[in-house]
């Protein structure tokens, strides 16, 4: 074992890990068995909402708590599996009553609310496609996603609607219904919207789950590439097989355990492991409606007796910054597994877990396109600090390189850097990029799905993250397309050109930095810089907009006119600039 390995916390008495012996699990695991273990039979129908909710009720677990929502004041709202089943059935009926056909896309622009659970699972139950949107997006990214996603129904709050959607509504020809979740009963409804609660109240709580199949599209998640528009990643109902299997194998969830996933429901983690996977394991989910706050988080971990906690490197680094004194204000005797996802977790953060909680964080790796965790440090055995972990049972992961002939070959020798590649065939593998079959096909080469992340694999099979193979920025765990940010910047009347890169940030992993070339005759000054920053934040939202803007007289370009982000990044970080033979522009 490596010098970086740290023992996980032992399973408490009476509980055995789902995955106790890694080698044995890899030998015996098959996806056919996983499907059978989930559904209990060979019925060709498969529906995520049914597996997440109805199945637990059918098993007699309807009175168990599915979720506990905690608001700012600390008020708890509990939701049982039976209650969730009824509210989902009501929403499925609402969609029918509104004339929304099966397969049409239903989106949410909501925080972590009970209504989000109802809409997501109700839409899936009705055979509709569910698309979560990140509530920190500004109007511009929302417009793009609502259009590309052919969204017919949007469920949001009046605040979000007025701030982000009302101004772009006229452009959204396919958007038929906007349903408003009222934040207080006296709140006025914006024009052209309908009260969500009222529709739900009038609907029946009986609904026959749509007879969906494994291959039917269920989820639409937007993710970012280097160039062009955001990509609409589609996952099918079969994703639930892998999301359930990994909730057991990696997160080690057992029925009635208390589980807290801190991810935002606007991203794939917040749905796969903040909703679907854990419900299929019949756990109680803790849902904190507030934003990050160290004292509050420690209090929740302690008071709610959280057993398994799935969080993100940015949050862990903020907790580290706040110091272990705060951690030690509480005790966590129930906490037995801490896992992390979103970006690579540095070894210091893993080890800090031991100092603060007496146990390490378990890093995991996956992406929107994989639909479920692919590489992980497992609950049983040891964590290798700073490593992404090993391939999940049922997943054939490798590090590959391109051959001179243009093909792909797996790298067999340990510790050599290449691109992470996965053999297609696992059930949560994305079924397409919406309306973009060429881009989908281009993700596969020689029988491998290429993930776009560079890594090395050591002798023991542990993967170590190196970097992205492209220019995509990862900030606070969110993928940000430089193209999308540059396009927004160029909408400002003073901006001629913009180039956007990720720069290292001690908390967020990467922060967005923009270099802006002004139109001729426009003088760069601080007032203009702030105006452009304000413009970008207004269009994109704080989470996507640059944190820093610098003026550049002439951005470095290739001879064909393409801006060289790689060179900007090298200059920013003081790295070697590489081959500049095709470069024009700044000396």
């Amino acid at each position, binding site marked *: 074992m490596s010098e970086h390995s740290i023992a996980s916390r032992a399973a408490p008495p009476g509980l055995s890990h789902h995955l106790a012996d890694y080698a044995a699990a890899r030998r015996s695991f098959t996806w056919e068995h996983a499907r059978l273990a989930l559904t209990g039979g060979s019925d060709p129908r498969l529906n995520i909402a049914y597996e997440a909710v109805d199945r637990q009720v059918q098993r007699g677990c309807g009175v168990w708590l599915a979720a506990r929502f905690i608001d700012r004041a600390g008020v708890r709202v509990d939701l049982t599996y039976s209650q969730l089943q009824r509210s989902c059935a009501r929403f499925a009926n609402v969609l029918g009553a509104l004339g929304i056909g099966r397969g049409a896309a239903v989106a949410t622009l909501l925080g972590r609310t009970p209504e989000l659970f109802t809409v997501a699972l109700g839409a899936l139950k009705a055979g509709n496609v569910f698309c979560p949107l990140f509530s920190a997006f500004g109007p511009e990214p929302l417009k793009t996603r609502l259009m590309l996603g052919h969204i017919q129904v949007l469920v949001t709050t009046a605040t979000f609607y007025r701030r982000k959607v009302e101004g772009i509504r006229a452009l959204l020809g396919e958007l038929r219904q906007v349903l408003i979740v009222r934040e207080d009963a006296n709140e006025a409804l914006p024009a052209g919207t309908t009260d969500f609660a009222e529709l739900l109240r009038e609907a029946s709580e009986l609904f026959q789950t749509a007879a969906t199949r494994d291959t039917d599209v269920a989820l639409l998640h937007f993710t970012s590439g280097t160039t062009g528009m955001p990509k609409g990643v589609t996952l099918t109902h079969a994703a639930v097989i892998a999301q359930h299997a990994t909730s057991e194998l990696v997160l080690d969830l057992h029925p009635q355990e208390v589980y807290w996933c801190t991810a935002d429901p606007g991203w794939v983690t917040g749905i796969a492991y903040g909703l679907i996977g854990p419900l299929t394991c019949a756990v109680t989910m803790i849902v904190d409606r507030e934003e990050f706050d160290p004292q509050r988080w420690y209090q929740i971990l302690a008071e709610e007796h959280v057993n398994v906690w799935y969080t993100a490197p940015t949050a862990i680094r903020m907790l580290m910054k*706040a110091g272990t004194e705060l951690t030690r204000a509480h005790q966590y005797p129930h906490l037995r597994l801490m896992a992390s996802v979103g970006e690579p977790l540095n070894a210091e953060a893993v080890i800090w877990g031991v100092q603060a909680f007496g146990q390490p964080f378990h890093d995991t790796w996956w992406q929107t396109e994989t639909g479920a965790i692919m590489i992980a440090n497992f609950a049983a055995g040891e964590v290798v600090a700073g490593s992404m972990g090993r391939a999940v049972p049922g997943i054939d992961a490798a590090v590959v390189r391109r051959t001179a002939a243009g093909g792909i070959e797996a790298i067999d020798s340990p510790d050599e850097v290449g691109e992470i590649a996965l053999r297609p065939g696992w059930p949560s593998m994305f079924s397409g990029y919406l309306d973009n079959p060429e881009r989908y096909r281009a993700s596969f080469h020689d029988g491998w799905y290429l993930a776009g992340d560079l890594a090395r694999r050591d002798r023991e099979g542990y993967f170590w993250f190196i970097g992205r193979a492209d220019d995509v920025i990862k900030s606070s765990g969110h993928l940000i397309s430089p193209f999308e940010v540059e396009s927004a910047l160029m909408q400002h009347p003073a901006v001629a050109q913009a180039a956007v890169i990720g720069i290292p940030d001690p908390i967020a992993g990467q922060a967005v930095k923009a270099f802006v070339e002004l139109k001729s005759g426009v003088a760069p000054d601080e007032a203009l810089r702030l105006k452009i920053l*304000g413009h970008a934040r207004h269009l994109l939202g*704080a989470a996507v907009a640059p944190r820093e803007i610098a003026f550049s007289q002439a951005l470095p370009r290739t001879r064909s006119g393409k801006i060289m982000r790689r060179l900007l990044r090298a200059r920013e970080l003081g790295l070697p600039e590489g081959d500049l033979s095709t470069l024009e522009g700044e000396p």
Partner: protein
Amino acid sequence: MDIRDIRTRLLELLTTIAPDIDAAHLNPQRALRDQFDFDSMDALHFATAVSEAFGIDIPERDYASLASLESAAQFVLSHLPAGA
């Protein structure tokens, strides 16, 4: 430095981090993140900027005191070094 100077300086810092904030409609009593698109990274940058501008140490546990403009002003006032 009196409370009015502090408020003015805080508003400058705030609109440097988030120039999209509409100062005319800012309610100083309400949490910034309830009024504007002001995320946790913004809050962190604001805390760092306040700490540097006023020369005061702000431990993480006190970040909650910077949630609204008025609570931030009161926090700064009570932590300013004597004679500042």
